[in-house]
């Protein structure tokens, strides 16, 4: 595959060791690359970036340390908002300064994706012998920091399907579109996906706000839409197929266990201010009141906010035992870290319905103790999961983003799509929908026919990742 190589160079008035020590310090005045936040410079460590996006605005991104030679060289894998490799080479100059050279490598497929995201062209490079399969997800905006493992898991599923003979003899081609965690951008991205000739289906791993805007477009274009995240969203048409966890199931199973563990009765509901967190709040209130608990307060803040202090103060003032925290992506990371710094973590317990392995990596120590119930955690101790994680590592290397429930759900949905198409005898919507009723996919998750989730895992964040506390059956169809 062809690659683009960009080279940049600067002569700096500081020695190589001094510069090396500054990398990852989180000081924005050092530029977004050296001023990134990195807890450690060991292979596999996460690097949080804040990219300038013009006119003073900033956007979150992620990279990962691949290799590191103290004082001489740092190799990074850039993950979001785009994928690439960055090598920073530091050479001492006779005057005591440093020649810093950076080499950025980005492959052609990613350039095509970026060009399409920038609105410069459609996905004209899909060959007519390929079966295009769309993935609409967030690689930028608040949820973007979690996006790379989703794309990886989708690619892994597609590679496995192709290695297994493809889709009725044709290779499946993954076409990735970024909704930028914004329904307005999602609509544009979806409309361009729908314009890809012969698009077989769209797999959606994005907010329910984007789903509300884009799902009618799938129906209008007669394209199956497989929506995978944990969501309360309705699927009012046969072409709209939901896979993820139901919030009411998550809350029903987990909140009583949490109250039992703490002996407390007071709950505070918080999250970003849009349909999904408010629906979580409404469901949580129902579950809490049914078990005799009290909701002491609710506080919702806009997506992309920096202002968590009023909500945290309200939690502190009203006296509470438990928090239900429905924040998304970057906001989730910021809220939990400020909450933890406030000292309230020690006297409360948090349930966060979006906390998965990728979120926990970003939270670090500030997330320890948070609970969630999802269909998948990487610590799931089954033969299918060990095999899945082995294949993920073999494909993307040890220095790759952790597999999360969100990402693994996409992997399962794509395999379920393929197995339904095979069973139905074609990639047309009617064949897929017919096949979906009778077929299934045996992956890490406990799923029945058509990808229906049969059990949830109860997990707790620990300093070394999420620990599985229990397995909770999902009894029958959710209310």
């Amino acid at each position: 595959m062809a690659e683009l190589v960009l080279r940049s160079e600067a002569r700096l008035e500081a020695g190589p060791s001094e510069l090396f020590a500054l990398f990852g310090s989180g000081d924005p005045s050092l530029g977004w690359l050296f001023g990134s936040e990195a807890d450690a410079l060991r292979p596999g460590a996460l690097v949080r970036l804040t990219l300038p996006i013009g006119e003073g605005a900033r956007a979150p991104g992620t990279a990962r340390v691949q290799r590191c030679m103290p004082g001489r060289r740092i190799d990074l894998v850039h993950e979001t908002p785009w994928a690439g490799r960055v090598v920073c080479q530091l050479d001492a100059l006779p005057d005591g300064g440093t020649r810093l050279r950076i080499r950025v490598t980005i492959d052609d497929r990613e350039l095509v994706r970026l060009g399409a995201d920038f609105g410069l062209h459609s996905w004209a490079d899909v060959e007519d012998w390929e079966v295009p399969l769309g993935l609409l997800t967030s690689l930028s905006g608040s949820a973007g920091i979690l996006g790379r493992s989703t794309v990886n898991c989708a690619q892994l599923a597609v590679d496995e399907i192709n290695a297994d003979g493809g889709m009725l003899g044709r290779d499946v081609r993954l076409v990735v579109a970024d909704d930028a965690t914004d329904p307005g951008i999602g609509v544009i991205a979806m409309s361009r996906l729908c314009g890809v000739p012969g698009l077989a289906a769209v797999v959606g791993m994005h907010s329910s706000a984007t789903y509300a805007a884009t799902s009618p477009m799938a129906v209008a274009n007669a394209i199956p839409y497989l929506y995978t995240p944990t969501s309360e969203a309705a699927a009012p048409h046969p072409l709209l197929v939901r896979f993820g966890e139901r919030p009411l199931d998550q809350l029903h199973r987990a909140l009583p266990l949490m109250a039992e563990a703490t002996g407390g009765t007071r709950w505070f509901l918080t999250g970003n201010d849009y349909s999904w967190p408010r629906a979580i709040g409404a469901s949580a209130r129902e579950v809490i009141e049914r078990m005799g608990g009290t909701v002491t307060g609710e506080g919702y803040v806009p997506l992309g906010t920096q202002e968590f202090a009023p909500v945290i103060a309200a939690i502190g003032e009203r006296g509470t035992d438990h928090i239900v925290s429905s924040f998304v992506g970057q906001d989730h990371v910021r809220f939990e870290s400020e909450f933890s710094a406030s000292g309230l973590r020690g006297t409360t317990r948090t349930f966060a319905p979006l906390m998965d392995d990728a979120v926990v990596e970003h939270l670090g120590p500030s997330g320890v103790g948070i609970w969630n119930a999802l269909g998948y955690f990487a610590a799931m101790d089954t033969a299918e999961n060990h095999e899945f994680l082995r294949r993920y590592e073999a494909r993307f290397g040890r220095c790759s983003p952790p597999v999360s429930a969100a990402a693994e759900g996409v992997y399962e949905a794509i395999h379920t799509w393929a197995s339904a198409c095979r069973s139905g005898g074609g990639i047309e919507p009617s064949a897929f929908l017919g096949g979906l009723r009778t077929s299934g996919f045996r992956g890490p998750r406990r799923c029945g026919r058509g990808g229906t989730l049969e059990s949830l895992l109860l997990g707790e964040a620990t300093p070394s990742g999420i620990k599985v506390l229990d397995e909770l059956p999902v009894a029958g169809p959710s209310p």
Partner: protein
Amino acid sequence: MTDPTSDATFSALADQTRRAILGLIGEHGELTVGEIASRFDGVGRTAVSSHLRILRLAGLITERRDGRYRHYSLTSTPADTVVAFLASVYQNSLDQLSAAMTEAVAAAGNTVQQDDELSA
């Protein structure tokens, strides 16, 4: 890599609304301000016009006048535009680091000078 063209490209592409406008124009070949504004919720005609001006100055779109109407279409070679954007994002980071180091050296110089003055 710091030529003004790539800076203009960077500023133009950095905004999500402008990207979405490019996407719309690319999809339809040619659109007027009114046609673009009618496809966006919450983005007025004036705002669309100002986005179009930035895109035009960055050389990403071109304008064709037809009586009262102005029609906009894409001009750029997509690959060149993406490359210019990425190049300026990375160069921007090095430029900022370089400025910070120079400033740190200057600040250290000042401190030394002040110390000299104090001891003098």
